[in-house]
């Protein structure tokens, strides 16, 4: 998805790029007000970090300076890109599969009261257990050298929040709207597409935003349990083993940027799809 033409000036918003509010577009004054606090805070934290490490003489093995991490990051871009791609495609694949499956299952469950009553608490419970712990099991089921193993871990993590939010969203139709469509004798499918889905969209996107963050975490954790040697999880392990701690931090930075991008894309899609609610 490309950024809308009204996206605020990148030089003003800086790292917040993909999260930028398109509605603030064109009004540099308001985007400055909006983005100045987080950007300034980030710089302040980084400056404190840099100062503390230098001032207190903290060894790089414990905590490297932000500047050295950025240097390592820029110096190792091709290998990092490769690592992010290996981990990222499992995250993205799992994100879409888990999201679609969660929505479908939620839509079916929301259709029948008894099913909804049964599935909703179960979904909440399953969502609470650490599903990333299933990674070794999935490695058994699928070939360890297939993207599907890690993608399944991600899909499962994304699935439950989506299931719960879809059920909740589809069931939160306003009583007045419910009476209206009944008075119009609207067929069930029309009620679903014209009323329930639009009502559920903010909930669905809430699950997608959460899912985007969880997907990257799950994909990296799954990396640690095997899989591709080029994956970022494996890369971090290797760098740690060779005492390249700054390189490990640079990989974390790369993963952060990837996670933020994914989250930003979801937020951008939400702005386009979900109209402002009154």
């Amino acid at each position, binding site marked *: 998805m490309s950024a809308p033409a009204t996206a605020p000036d990148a030089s003003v918003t800086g790292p917040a790029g993909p999260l930028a509010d398109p509605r603030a577009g064109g009004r540099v004054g308001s985007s400055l007000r909006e983005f100045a606090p987080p950007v300034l805070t980030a710089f302040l934290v980084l400056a404190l970090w840099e100062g503390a490490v230098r001032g207190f003489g903290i060894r790089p093995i414990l905590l490297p300076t932000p500047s050295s991490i950025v240097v390592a990051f820029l110096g190792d871009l091709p290998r990092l890109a490769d690592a992010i791609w290996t981990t990222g495609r499992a995250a993205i694949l799992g994100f879409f599969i888990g999201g679609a499956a969660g929505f479908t299952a939620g839509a079916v469950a929301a259709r029948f009261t008894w099913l909804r009553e049964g599935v909703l608490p179960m979904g909440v419970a399953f969502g609470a257990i650490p599903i990333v712990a299933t990674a070794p099991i999935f490695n058994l089921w699928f070939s360890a050298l297939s993207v599907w193993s890690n993608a399944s871990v991600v899909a499962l993590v994304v699935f439950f929040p989506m299931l719960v939010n879809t059920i909740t969203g589809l069931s939160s139709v306003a009583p007045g709207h419910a009476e209206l469509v009944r008075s119009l004798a609207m067929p069930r499918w029309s009620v679903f597409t014209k009323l329930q889905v639009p009502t559920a969209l903010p909930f669905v996107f809430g699950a997608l935003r959460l899912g985007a963050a969880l997907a990257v975490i799950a994909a990296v954790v799954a990396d640690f349990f095997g899989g591709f040697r080029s994956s970022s999880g494996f890369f971090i392990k290797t760098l740690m083993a060779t005492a390249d701690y700054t390189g490990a931090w640079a990989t974390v930075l790369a993963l952060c940027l990837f996670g933020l991008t994914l989250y930003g894309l979801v937020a951008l899609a939400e702005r386009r799809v*979900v*109209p402002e609610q*009154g």
Partner: protein
Amino acid sequence: MTSGQEQIVEQGVARESAQETVVDPIVSTRHVTKRFGTGPEAVVALSDVTFDIAAGDFVSLIGPSGCGKSTLLRTIADLIEPTDGEITVNGTSAHDARLARHYGMVFQQATLFNWRTVRRNVELPLETMGMSKQERGRRSREMLELVELSDFANKRPNQLSGGMQQRVSIARALSFQPSLLLMDEPFGALDEITRERLNLELLRIWEATATTVVFVTHSIPEAVFLSNRIVVMSPRPGRILAEIEVDLPYPRDDDTREQDRYFELVTEVRETLRRAEAG
């Protein structure tokens, strides 16, 4: 505007003939009772309600909060099933009438979809009926003209004032030209000035569309100004206290509210309600 004038003339003729000859009522309730809950905690919302509404009427159901007037309207709309009794709408059961879309309904809240434009809100019933896009566009244009909101067709409902939203909701209810319009305190949430303006507008729409209106309100002046008949209800259990004919001539306007007869009728309704409370 000539077609509108023709409609008014036709409407006038229809109303006169309705008074002269005995026609089947468009709504008729027989011994309608509604209990909520069971056992000793059951609440009787409606008790033995029997009345008729003739085609072309503007009937108001009035009474204090909790008198079951909204419940009665909802049983006519088949949104609530009565515990006992029978309701016919347009010669069929209330249930079949709902499925056949014999009525349009306006609620106290405008119940518009904020994710749709004003125009597409008005077209919602037409989409459900499978009408072509072209025909839907024609009808919604006509309806928005009727409620004088043509300039707002492409706005979102939340960009409109409360009074405008309620006018959109009326346009939506009339978009498929139902013979019956059910209104549940549609102007109850609006300020007095907006309410009086919308009362005038509603009468104009009623006269232009040959629709029968059943109007729930707890405002006495509103009921007298709008209706040709007022059904006064008492609370717990909700039943009909009196039916008052309003013999103020149509078309009514702001001057109607200053006539002696208007004040007499307002007093009559008020005293009927007060007697019920005392008794």
